C-alpha cells in the first residue's frame, strides 16, 4: 500500500493562482506613500482608487493595507488586484506624485505576483529578538548592528529556503508618556515594553524539522555570540500566538562589546535625519538578505524595517539613517 503524494501544496498553488488571476486581475496594483509620521495632518491616508470614496465600489478599496511608522517617518502600502497586464518585466513603478501633504510622496505601480511563493502550508516559526533594555534611541553604530542582525537572520532563512513571512523592527517601542490610557476605555495602564525588539517569522515545511532545528540552533548560537535576547514562539500544543518561550535573555555587556568590536569606526551619535527606502517585487526567498547586504556593503545601517508580503508581492520598507556629512 502506498500513500498518495500530498496535495496540500498543489492545492495552495491553485489557490494562489486563482486569487491572483481572477476575472479582473492579472497583476497587483500598489500604491506606496512615504511621509512624516504624526504630522499636523494626522496619519497617512489609505490610498483609494477613486476620487469619490462615498461611491459604493468595493474594488475601489485596497484588498490589503499596511501602515508602518517609526523614527518620525511613516509608510503606508495598499494593494489591489489589477486587470492591467500591459507592462513588461516584473515591476513597473511610476514617478512620485504629491498627495497634497508636506514632504509626502505617493508612488503607484504594478507588479506581477509570484504564485510559486507557497507558504500557507508551512509551519510558522516566530522569533523575537531583544536588542536593548532601555528606550529606543539608536545610534549609527546600532543601526549598522541592526542591519547586520537582519542580514544574518534573513540569510539563515534564505539558506534553508525558508521564506521570510514578515520582519518588523522596532517592535514594542517604549510608549509615549501621554499614552497611558488604553484605547479600549479600560483603566489598565499600558505595560512598559521590555525594550526595542525585532520580530520576524519564517515559514518552514513541517516535514523539514531538521531544517527548523538547525535554524533555531544557529539562532541561539548567534544570540550567544552577539548577546541579543532570543525568544521563540511557544510551540506547545495549546498555546496561542504571542506567547513566547525565552531561550536567552538580553546580555547588555556582550551586545555592547560585540557592537564596538564589529563597528569601531561608526559614530555613536543618534542620527538627526532619516529616509525611507522601499524595495518592491514578486515574493521570493532571499530578497531581504540581498537588499540589506547591498546597503551594508555601502556602510549604511537600518534604523527600522517593515517587511511584509501582500498578494504575493513583497514590500521591503527600510528606514535608513542619513549620514552626518549628507545632512
Amino acid at each position, binding site marked *: *500500500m*502506498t*500513500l*498518495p*503524494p*500530498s*496535495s*496540500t*501544496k*498543489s*492545492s*495552495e*498553488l*491553485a*489557490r494562489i*493562482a*486563482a*486569487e*491572483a*488571476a*481572477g*476575472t*479582473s*486581475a*492579472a497583476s497587483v496594483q500598489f500604491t506606496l506613500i512615504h511621509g512624516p509620521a504624526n504630522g499636523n495632518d494626522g496619519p497617512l491616508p489609505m490610498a483609494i482608487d477613486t476620487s469619490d470614496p462615498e461611491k459604493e465600489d468595493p474594488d475601489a478599496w485596497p484588498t490589503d493595507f499596511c501602515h508602518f511608522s517609526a523614527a518620525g517617518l511613516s509608510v503606508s502600502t495598499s494593494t489591489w*488586484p489589477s486587470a492591467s497586464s500591459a507592462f*513588461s518585466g*516584473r515591476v513597473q513603478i511610476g514617478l512620485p506624485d504629491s498627495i497634497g501633504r508636506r514632504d509626502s510622496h505617493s508612488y503607484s505601480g504594478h507588479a*506581477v*505576483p*509570484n*504564485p*510559486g511563493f*507557497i507558504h*500557507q*502550508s*508551512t*509551519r510558522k516559526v516566530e522569533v523575537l529578538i531583544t536588542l536593548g533594555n532601555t528606550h529606543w534611541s539608536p545610534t549609527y553604530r546600532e543601526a549598522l548592528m541592526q542591519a547586520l542582525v537582519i542580514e544574518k537572520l534573513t540569510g539563515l532563512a534564505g539558506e534553508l*529556503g525558508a521564506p521570510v513571512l514578515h520582519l518588523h523592527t522596532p517592535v514594542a517601542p517604549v510608549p509615549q508618556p501621554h499614552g497611558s490610557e488604553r484605547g479600549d476605555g479600560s483603566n489598565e495602564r499600558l505595560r512598559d515594553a521590555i525594550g526595542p525588539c525585532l520580530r520576524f517569522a519564517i515559514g518552514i515545511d*513541517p*516535514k523539514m*524539522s*531538521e531544517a*527548523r*532545528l*538547525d535554524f533555531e*540552533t544557529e539562532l541561539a*548560537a548567534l544570540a550567544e555570540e552577539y548577546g541579543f535576547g532570543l525568544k*521563540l514562539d*511557544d*510551540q*506547545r*500544543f*495549546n498555546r496561542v500566538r504571542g506567547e513566547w*518561550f*525565552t*531561550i*536567552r535573555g538580553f546580555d547588555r555587556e556582550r551586545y555592547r562589546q560585540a557592537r564596538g568590536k564589529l563597528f569601531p569606526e561608526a559614530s555613536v551619535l543618534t542620527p538627526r535625519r532619516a529616509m525611507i527606502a522601499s524595495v518592491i517585487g514578486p515574493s521570493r*526567498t532571499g530578497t531581504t538578505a540581498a537588499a540589506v547586504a547591498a546597503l551594508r556593503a555601502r556602510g549604511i545601517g537600518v534604523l527600522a524595517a517593515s517587511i511584509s508580503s501582500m498578494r*504575493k508581492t513583497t514590500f521591503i520598507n527600510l528606514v535608513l539613517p542619513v549620514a552626518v556629512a549628507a545632512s
Partner: protein
Amino acid sequence: MTVHIRGNAAVAVRSTADALDHLRTLIQAVPVPTAPVTFPSREAALGLALMDLSFRLDHLPRLSEHLTLMDRGHMSRAISVDVDLEVISGRLRNTLLVPGDAAPAGGSPSLWVPLSRYSRRDLTPVVITDSNGDVVPRLSDRDANRVTAAAFVKLLFMLINAHEDVAAPASPIHQLRHTHQRSRWLIEAAITELITVGSPVGQQLHSPLDHAVLAAPRSGSRSVRDLALTGLDALFPPAGGDHLVVPFARLLQLATRQYILVAQLGLDRPRRFLTWDAPLLPAQHRPAPLQSLAKNVLPVNREFVVEYETEIPRSVKAYHLTLEVRQEISVRRFLMSSDVDDEFVEVLAQDLESVARRADRLGGHHKLLELEMQSIASRLAELGRRRLIDLAGYEAYLARLPIPVGPGSAPPRRKLTADEVIAALSAGDCSLEVLAAFCAHYAADGMQHLAKSGLAGQALLNIANGLRAAQVGRDVTTDNDPREHGAHAHWRRPSVELSPQSTEPVRAFAYMALADEAPALIEDIARMVAGLALMVLAIGTLLSGGTAWLYSSQVSEGFVPEQPDAVVAVLLLVPGLLLARLALPSTRSVLGQLHKFQRSLAAASVLVTTALAIALGTVRSDREMTRLFQLALAVLIVILFCCLSEFYARRAHRSSSVPRSMRVPRWLRDARRATRRTVEPDDFFDARGEV
C-alpha cells in the same frame, strides 16, 4: 505498513514527476504551433477557481455516502452533499458566475460550483438532483477540461512572469517570455493536449514518436522543442530550487487523471442539498484461493468481510457512511477508521527523530531543547487524549451490540506513575494506556523539565518508531444504527484540527462483517438433519423391532422389509420436502457465499437418505441392510456435528472484540490484546479514484 509510510516521500516525488515526463513526451510529439493557443482570460480564471475550490471543497459542510451491496462484487453508492455558497468569497464568486445567464424577471444569477473529483475511468453519466428532485445542470467534462487547460496555461504564464530570470536576457525563461515565443506556445499546446487526452495511472503515454525513427536530429522544429524543454527544466528545477516542481506536477497529475464534477447552482438558494449516484464500484478481488477454499469447506461459520475505502475532503465537518444490505443478512460489525491525524503523527515522529539526532547540539542550548521536548510532550498528550476517547466509544459500541462483548476480554487497567510512563515510552511502548497516563501526568504538570529526564536522546527514536507502529494517527468511529441489516457511522471533524494547514483529503476505511445471524439458515438445516437422523433411526427401529441394531453387532431377522416401496417413498419424499422449504439463495449473492457450506450440508444429508432409499430397493441381505442403516445414521450424526460446530464458530465470531483486519488501527488491537493475525477481506472496494 510503517515502513511504507516512511519510504513514501521518494515514491511521491517519482510518481508526480511522471506527470511532467508525460508533458515532456508531448512537447516532443505535438506539432509546433505557429500561433498561441488562445483562451479567453475569463476561462482561465474560471479554471483556476474551479481547481482551487475542487481541492478544498470548503463549501461542502456535510457529506453522506449511502452504500448498497448489490451482489458479491458490486457496490452502488449514492452521494449527497450539503452545499453552502455563502462560504465562497466574493471575488471567487464573480469568477464562477455563469456567463450569459440572463436572469429572467426576478431570477438570480448562478454559479459553477465544483462538488467532487472523480476518476476519468468512470464513464457512467452522473445526474445530480436537488432536494426537490429537479435535475441540476452540469458543466460538461469537455468544457471542464477546456477551462482546466486554460488555467494551466495561465498558471504557467504567471510562473514565467514572476521568475527571477525573466529580466535576464539570453536565459531560457527570458527567451520563452519575450523572444522565442513559439517554444512557450509549444508548452502550452502540450499542456492542452495532455489535459484533453488525459494520462491514466500506471501507463506510459503513447505518442507517435514510439513508432518512428527520426532521421535528422537538428531539423526544423528541433530547436523550438529543445528550448521548450530547457525552459521547463529552468522553471521547475528537478532538485533543490524552490520546491515548485512537486506541487505543479501533482496539480497536473490530478488534472489529467480526474474530472471535476461541476454543477450550476443559483445564488437565490445559497444552501442546497444535492444527491447523485456515483458510478458503480467493482470489487477488487484479492486472490487468496486457499483461504477462501478453507472458508467454504470447513465448518467455520463464514463471515463475509467487505472493506471500503474512500476520501473525505478535509474541510468537511460531518461525514455519514450508511450501508444497507438484504434483510436476510446481518451486519455483525461495522467500523470506520480514518487517517485524520496521520500527517500530524508523521510530523511529530520526524520531529522526534530530528531532536534525537541533534540532542548533542541542542544540549548546548538547554532552553531550546526544553522547548522542543515540551512541544513534543504536548502533542503526545493530545494524541493520547484523542485515542482514549475513540477507545471509550469503541467499548460502548461493543457493549451495545445485540450480543454484547463485555469487558471480560479487556485486560485489567494499570495505573502508571510518571517515572513508569517515561520508562515505558523510552522503551518504545506507545500503547494507549501509556499515552493516556502520559496525558494525565502532562495535564497535572508532572512532565516539566523533560530536557533533563531520560526521555531526551535515544529514547525519542524509540517513541517515533512506537508511534508509527501503533498507528495512533488513525481514529475509530463505530456503528450507531439499531437495525441489523443496516449500518451507519457518523464521523465528525475534530474540533481542533491538528494539521490546520493541510488540505490533503482524509482517507477513511470502513470494515463491515456480514453474517447470517439467528434465525439463520444453519438452524433450519440443523433441525432438518436432526429430523432425518430421527427418521432413519425410527425406520431402523421399526424394521428390526427394537433398538438393539444401534449398538449390537447382532443382525435381526427380517430387517429387509417385504414391501420396501413405502419406506423408500418416505426416505425420498421427506428430505425433498424439507429441502424445498429451505430458501437457498443464488451463489452469486453475498448470502449465497455465506451459505455455501451450509448448503452442502443440506445436500449431503439428502444424499444420505436418497442413497439409503436406493439401497432399500436393491439390497436383500439383512446384514448389509443393518450395516447400511448404521452407516447412514453415523453420517447424519457427523453432519449434525458439523452443524453444531457452525454454532460454536458463530459464537466465537460474535464474541471477537476487534476485527481481524489490517485496516483496523494497531492501537485498538493492542488495547484489546488481539493477537491473532489479520486476514484479507472477501471484497475490497476502493472509491478514491485514480490518485
